[in-house]
């Protein structure tokens, strides 16, 4: 860039970071994203992703969404001849189905393995299961597992690309990317937005991935929940923790409401679902504290009347249904970029 000549390295980097966050990917007809490439990369967690790489995924997602929405023939040839295995050690509806459809829309062969009906119940180790799948010649393994670090562990064991579809409370990168995409589609921008993430932060892989994704894109994050569900010693640039929900949602542009698992009550983390709903639930009254056009997200599945009221779920500001549709597009983008480099075929 001619106009950056003579500017310090640090300033130039800051400049690029800001314009990437702002959604600009071209200046004077030159794309910044040309050198960004995810071909062959595993997607384990967003801490390893740059703002440019996130931008590339979002741009590709936009194209994929148009393909889904145009109706008629959805199938693309991009991943023809590629084989993808969905290896899910935990139950999932939307993530597993959307990865499966994403692969199929791109022309890949997709097989889903559920832990309940495979050799896993016979006590096969994760290493051996991965090696077995690898031996069958697959190109990518989409993996959900209860253990934090399981996806990263998998990248060290087998050669196929690993796409993390959730590892314990650690990361859920495709969810965070679809959150970003949904926000940008509705708000027209990411940088500078104030996002409140409400609920069980302690056990949430969605929150942890959102934190990396959103701060990288210049967003401001406020976390809130009962102190029993907030991680102790948590500190992260650009993230503020609140023990009162009101402080977090005041003036928020986006509220991401996390699912409260009912086991948490049995574990003594809060006394009752009733009290949780009263003190920390997102309802129409609380919503008034946020900006008028606040966007409501929820990774699903919801406990209506607990962390979120029905009125909020179905209100005009709610993008919960769109998240599901965007989930397929984002997963198409991830599979296309990592397995095909994102190019035309």
């Amino acid at each position, binding site marked *: 860039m001619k106009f950056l000549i003579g500017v310090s390295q640090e300033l130039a980097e800051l400049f690029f970071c800001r314009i990437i966050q702002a959604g600009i990917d071209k200046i004077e007809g030159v794309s910044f994203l040309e050198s960004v490439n995810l071909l062959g990369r595993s997607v384990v967690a967003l801490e390893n992703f740059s703002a440019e790489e996130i931008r590339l995924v979002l741009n590709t997602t936009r194209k994929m969404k148009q393909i889904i929405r145009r109706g008629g023939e959805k199938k693309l040839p991009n991943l023809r001849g590629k084989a993808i295995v969905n290896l899910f050690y935990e139950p999932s509806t939307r993530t597993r189905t959307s990865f499966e459809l994403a692969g199929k829309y791109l022309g890949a062969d997709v097989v889903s393995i559920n832990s309940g009906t495979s050799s896993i119940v016979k006590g096969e*180790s994760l290493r051996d299961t991965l090696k077995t799948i690898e031996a069958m010649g697959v190109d990518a393994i989409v993996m959900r597992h209860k253990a934090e*670090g399981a996806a990263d562990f998998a990248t060290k064991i087998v050669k196929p690309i690993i796409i993390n579809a959730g590892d314990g409370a650690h990361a859920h990168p495709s969810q965070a990317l679809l959150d970003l995409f949904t926000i940008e589609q509705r708000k027209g921008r990411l940088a500078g937005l104030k996002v409140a993430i409400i609920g069980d932060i302690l056990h949430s892989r969605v929150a942890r991935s959102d934190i990396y994704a959103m701060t990288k894109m210049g967003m401001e994050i406020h976390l809130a929940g009962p102190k029993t569900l907030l*991680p102790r010693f948590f500190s992260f640039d650009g993230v503020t923790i609140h023990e009162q929900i009101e402080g977090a949602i005041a003036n928020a542009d986006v509220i991401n409401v996390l699912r409260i698992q009912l086991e948490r009550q049995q574990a003594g983390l809060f006394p009752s679902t009733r009290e949780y709903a009263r003190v920390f639930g997102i309802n129409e009254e609380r919503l008034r504290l946020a900006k008028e056009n606040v966007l409501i997200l929820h990774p699903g599945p919801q406990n209506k009347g607990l962390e979120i009221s029905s009125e909020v779920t179905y209100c005009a500001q709610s993008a919960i249904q769109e998240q599901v549709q965007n989930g397929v597009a984002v997963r198409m983008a991830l599979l296309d970029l990592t397995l095909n480099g994102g190019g035309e075929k």
Partner: protein
Amino acid sequence: MNQTWQIKRPESKISSTLLIRGGNVVDPANNFDGVADILVIDGKIAAVKPEIKFSADYEYNAAGKIVTPGLIDMHVHFREPGQESKEDFLSGSKAAVAGGFTTVATMPNTSPVVDNAALVRSMVKRAEDVGLINIKIIGAVTKEQKGQELAEMRDMIAAGAVAFSDDGHFDDNAKIFLNALDYLHETGKIIICHEEETTLVSGGVMNEGKRSAILGLKGRPTVAEDIAVARDVLLAEYTGGRVHIAHISSARAVEIVRDAKKRGVKVTAEVTPQHLTMTDDLVNPADASTKINPPLRTKKDCDACLAGLIDGTIDFIVTDHSPHAPEEKDREYIYAPSGFPGLETSVGILFTELYHKGKIDLKTLISKMTAEPAQIFGLNAGTLSIDAPADITIIDPDFIWTVDAKNFYTKGSHSPFIGRELKGRAVATIVRGNLMKLNQF
């Protein structure tokens, strides 16, 4: 460089006389530090003085090396009986020799638990049969280490148990623990305590801190250790019993022990090389090597442990050698068992991270691995006194080597120290006059 060790078994030719020439002898038990020769006759120390004139069957040139009493490790898991896929007395003994240890004490959390005299007796016999090093047996405090009923500790003492421990977990039942202290009071035997309050660490796999918060891994907070140490120190004070804090790791716990010692409470403590030198920043959930209990803490805790070691709050160093079979460690972090083998890396880590960095002087370091544990547990070891058993370790403080699991004698394969370049290691280990050394020395 070939780092293969050759351990000569005792049945190979034992020199009846051995002369160790010109080493820098560090013998804290006798407050001796200087260049001297050591003469060994019939498995006992015969003389320690400069320039001994004697024609021995075998001479070892120790010039430039450090010669110390055989190192002692009061906290190892040799996994016999029942868990021989992780370690056995022979593989564990070889690891000890390779690391410079001549005396170890095995923890009773085996399968079955060593909680009765018959098992203690058979383990003592087994130790003699293997015979490479001195293996002391620690018995369980409660039956099956379940914390419900006292084990037959007096019988176990008669069978040769040197101390008692329910290591592996904390005894929640304060009344049983108090009873154990009272019951042992007259014998003077020590209870070695794993200090982590159970409910606070349930499900936890690493230190609760900034790192666990961002990784989403469940934490084991320092306060769990602090509460447990405080309780046991108070019970020791109340009963007059002897409590030894195993693998202390929290800064606050070190303070609690320091205060208790000032009040005259009969409490002692140990620390591991890993808790002195490594922090939870090293935890990578894709590699279970760093998973131990208590977990790796923070820099502040490491510093407090080192300060405690130097000011005498912490009495000695142990490895907590806890090998597991490779397939057990090579899996998801949350499912992998806790612990890694430490005998073969201890000297290297302590010399590299503490001695060479000027954080501890040689005499204190050696004392914490020889004289102090021997004195606390009343072992006939840890000294180069005349007529003492000739258990001697020769350390090359400048020997540079890289930790590689391929060269381990332990059956354990995973250690967070693998890949580290270390400066200093044991180059020869002598047990009752039997010299065992690396191939290239």
